[in-house]
């Protein structure tokens, strides 16, 4: 009996010590993954720093031009990498109300599209003839989206009010038929697992939906009308976003933002990840993971330093240039694959 009490006490003490040691060494901010990143495949050298008059909330690159939208001033700015000049393009106050959820450019027609989820409208502006218009679909509530490469369609994420199902749709705002391209599995998580943002690459005619909270990136090949998935190396599954609690559900640690920003070129997808891997000092939000858009496989990673103490928030890719926004400043890197 005495021996029993001694061994049981040792078990209790051992368990308490282990938990206490774990708690003292814990790091609630860190999101660790089990993959060793490859830093040998890609090299980036800073080429230019562009200062905008306010925080850049959305960014697009087309050829030698970089467009940055400054929400606090409600202005769109254009930066020319040739002459290194930043010029205000136009004010959106006259035709855009509420918060902008994204913007897009059609370089052929010179039209800018501004998406607004509050009003459920897509605002058009063509600077060359000051054409202003808006697109509206009464029954379709979109959350975010991009203009398709072909025709007048938009690739958007929308939730059906009746079924609460969230889908990626190709929507014809001129009154034609809509196509549901992908429907997200529904979890009782308030839509967190299907929340994300869009990016695209014009040369390959590919659109990407990047989820904030899980690893399943949806790739839409518009030319082939084909949907496929790219799984990021953290492998966080969408169903892990919420966990049951005594009164309904609570957001689990797995629902922390993993993918912050992304950019694509004809063969690669660059994802700014919040996950850190073992063996290297990777403060959250400093690593860009590169995936092949052809094979869907992880290729290599790139670590970016903080800029004036700030971490990167937006990415954009054009040619061999990778633009990284840090609030007011955008750093342009030249990318080389080894």
């Amino acid at each position: 009996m005495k021996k029993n009490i001694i061994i049981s006490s040792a078990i209790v003490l051992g368990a308490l010590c282990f938990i206490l040691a774990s708690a003292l060494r814990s790091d609630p901010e860190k999101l660790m993954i089990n993959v060793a990143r490859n830093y040998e495949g890609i090299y980036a050298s800073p080429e230019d720093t562009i200062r905008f008059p306010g925080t850049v909330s959305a960014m697009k690159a087309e050829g030698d031009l970089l467009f940055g939208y400054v929400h606090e001033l409600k202005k769109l700015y254009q930066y020319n990498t040739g002459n290194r000049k930043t010029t205000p393009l136009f004010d959106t106050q006259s035709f855009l109300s509420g918060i902008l959820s994204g913007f897009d450019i059609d370089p052929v027609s010179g039209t800018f599209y501004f998406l607004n989820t509050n009003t459920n409208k897509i605002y058009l502006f063509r600077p060359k003839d000051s054409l202003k218009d808006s697109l509206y679909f009464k029954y379709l509530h979109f959350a975010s989206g991009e203009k398709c490469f072909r025709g007048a369609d938009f690739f958007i994420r929308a939730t059906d009010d009746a079924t609460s199902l969230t889908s990626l749709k190709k929507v014809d705002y001129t009154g034609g038929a809509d196509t549901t391209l992908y429907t997200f599995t529904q979890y009782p998580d308030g839509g967190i697992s299907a929340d994300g943002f869009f990016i695209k690459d014009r040369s390959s005619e590919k659109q990407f939906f990047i989820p904030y909270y899980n690893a399943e990136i949806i790739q839409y090949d518009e030319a082939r009308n084909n949907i496929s998935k790219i799984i990021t190396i953290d492998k966080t599954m969408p169903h892990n976003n919420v966990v049951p609690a005594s009164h309904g559900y609570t957001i689990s640690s797995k629902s922390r933002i993993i993918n912050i920003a992304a950019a694509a070129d004809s063969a690669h997808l660059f994802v700014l990840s919040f996950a850190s891997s073992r063996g290297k000092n990777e403060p959250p939000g400093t690593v860009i993971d590169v995936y092949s858009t052809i094979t869907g496989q992880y290729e290599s990673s790139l670590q970016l330093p903080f800029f004036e103490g700030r971490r990167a928030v937006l990415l954009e890719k054009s040619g061999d240039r990778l633009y990284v926004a840090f609030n007011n400043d955008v750093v342009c890197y030249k990318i080389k694959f080894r």
Partner: protein
Amino acid sequence: MKRNTIITILSYSLSILFVYAASAKAMVYTDFMADIAKSPLLVNYNKAILAPGILGLEFLTVILLQFNATLKLGFYLSSFLMLMFTLYLGTLYFFYTNIPCSCGGILGRMPYPVHIIFNLLFTIFSFYGTFLCSKPVDRPQSAVV
């Protein structure tokens, strides 16, 4: 109730629990690895050792609980594991905002307070088992799960 009968019930219950918990984790091993990797408490441990280690200990407990000669050791190991799981969940529940639980199957779906109480109950069962095994056990060996 006879002492041997209680021991048999306890070892059966714990064996079923560990077989179920370990199998549920093993069946979704990649998810299990990813889940424990995101635990704020386990952030500084090597998951490549920790994950198979947990599964190995759970299966080892089941094996030890099957034989009269190793029954007491099985209850000790079970006590340690159940106490660790209870303290782990309790610490996360009371001191951290994000609560990951890597348990698979029905255990992972339990609300956290219920899960903690459930674990606590099986911790008490395990410790009770060790005390019942103070004297030699004469249990039929058919208790193999």
